[in-house]
């Protein structure tokens, strides 16, 4: 089953996918443009993995990692399908990252690799923007690069784990204004989903609502205000985001 959280007619609703449309729990079926898409879960701890595809690590001039590069995010950075994300005018290089996101469904510590999938509730698509201008070499990637308001998109759907027989063999891709710019497969991850669950749960407790963004393959490019960026993982979803510039942002802001 594909589940979503949407706002419609003044209330927040649990929804499911129905023939490509959105079915509210009360049975009403709506077009995707009729609802406001919220992130499909309200995450507890948000993990992200950097440099987890050999080609992307090479693209960024890093060698292979011995242990995963893991960083954390805060609730401020999460937004849903069809969100508008601010691209600051002073930045020269802001890029998307299309990622498979794994949602934890059960409390667990020291989870062995061969049981890791038992702890997964489902999967969604993430677009984990970075603004490289702000990279600094302390606790890198630092939060100013990776934890900006509304710059980590999740959605549209949370797909039940039972409906994803092999999450390690999914094609993923990104397009800007309809033109494909990134392409890869989850089978090329350096540290796969069972490894990441085993690794993290070895030193910290995982709990329902924790989410792991598993990294992105090569093919990241700069985005501009006005762009429509679609990140897609086969069988999981197609996540749309719109970039807005300083003008659109500032014209709505009041001190």
């Amino acid at each position, binding site marked *: 089953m594909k589940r979503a959280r949407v706002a419609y007619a003044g209330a927040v609703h649990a929804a499911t996918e129905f023939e490509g449309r959105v079915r509210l729990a009360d049975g009403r079926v709506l077009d995707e443009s009729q609802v406001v898409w919220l992130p499909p879960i309200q995450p507890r701890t948000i993990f992200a993995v950097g440099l987890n595809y050999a080609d992307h690590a090479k693209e960024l001039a890093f060698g292979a990692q011995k242990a995963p590069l*893991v960083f*954390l995010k*805060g609730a401020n950075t999460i937004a849903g399908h069809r969100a508008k994300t601010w691209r600051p005018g002073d930045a020269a290089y802001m890029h998307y990252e299309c990622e498979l996101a794994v949602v934890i469904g059960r409390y667990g510590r020291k989870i062995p690799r061969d049981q890791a999938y038992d702890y997964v509730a489902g999967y969604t698509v993430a677009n984990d923007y970075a603004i490289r201008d702000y990279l*600094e*070499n302390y606790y890198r990637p630092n*939060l100013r690069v990776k934890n900006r308001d509304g710059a980590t998109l999740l959605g549209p759907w949370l797909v039940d784990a039972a409906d994803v027989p092999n999450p390690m063999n999914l094609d993923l891709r990104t397009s800007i204004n309809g033109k494909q710019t990134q392409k890869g497969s989850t089978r090329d991850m350096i540290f796969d989903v069972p490894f990441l669950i085993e690794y993290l749960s070895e*030193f*910290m407790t995982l*709990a329902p609502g924790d989410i792991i963004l598993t990294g992105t393959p090569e093919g990241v490019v700069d985005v501009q205000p006005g762009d429509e960026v679609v990140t897609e993982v086969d069988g999981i979803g197609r996540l749309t985001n719109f970039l807005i510039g300083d003008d659109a942002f500032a014209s709505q802001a009041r001190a």
Partner: protein
Amino acid sequence: MSIALARLRGSAPLRRVEIDPAGRVQLDGQWRAGAEIAWDVPTSGGVYGTLHNFRGALEALGNAIHEPPYVAPPKAPVLYVKPANTWIGYGSAIPVPAGVPALRMGGTVGIVIGRAASRVSEAQALSFIGGYTVVNDVSVPHDNFYRPAIREKCRDGFCPIGPWVLAAEHVKDPAALTVRTLVNGKLQLEKSLGELVRSIPRLIADVTAFMTLAEGDVLLPAVSETGPLASAGDTVAIEVAGVGRLENPLVNQAEVIAGELR
């Protein structure tokens, strides 16, 4: 008499408590010693720490900050997240992982945000603070700050918080607060929040320039990267005069379940 918000174990809602200068607490009309009460974590928002914000911390790295991997001193505040699995309340056990001889204590004040703070000015920053609590940002000792220190800072029980959140009105100037770290009752470190690279208002302005702090989020303005070490069997207390006193025992992880003794 001061007003604070607190949460008792086994009773989920935050409640208002009165505190006297001796640390006694009025609960349901009765005065009790604060240490007698089973406190739970008094906050529920995100917890963000700030690296190298005590004066001298960056300088202590010497020339290394100009060499790889750092290359240059940081320009913006360097933050890190203390995730939900790290939060424990007053009196709960800090688990000491197997094979780690000692943990570094990171006594500090938790600034609890009172209303959503986004792109706030330094001049207005203090008005966004809802209260203050006491925090111990525990780490496995580490001296490399290049990659996020998840394995070192995000283990279960590595962020005691409490006992309560004191209402902001009782703290005229947070720069006048002093954090004392005691191990087994012996004072090991005393740091003033007047000794910051970025003052608290400046830090709030610089952080909210790139991320919104929500009501209930907790910002740790500075933690000593060379704080005292403590081991299983020790008891650590963080004292912030005028805010509160946070005490937790350190216990071998094998003997702890979710902050409680097995």
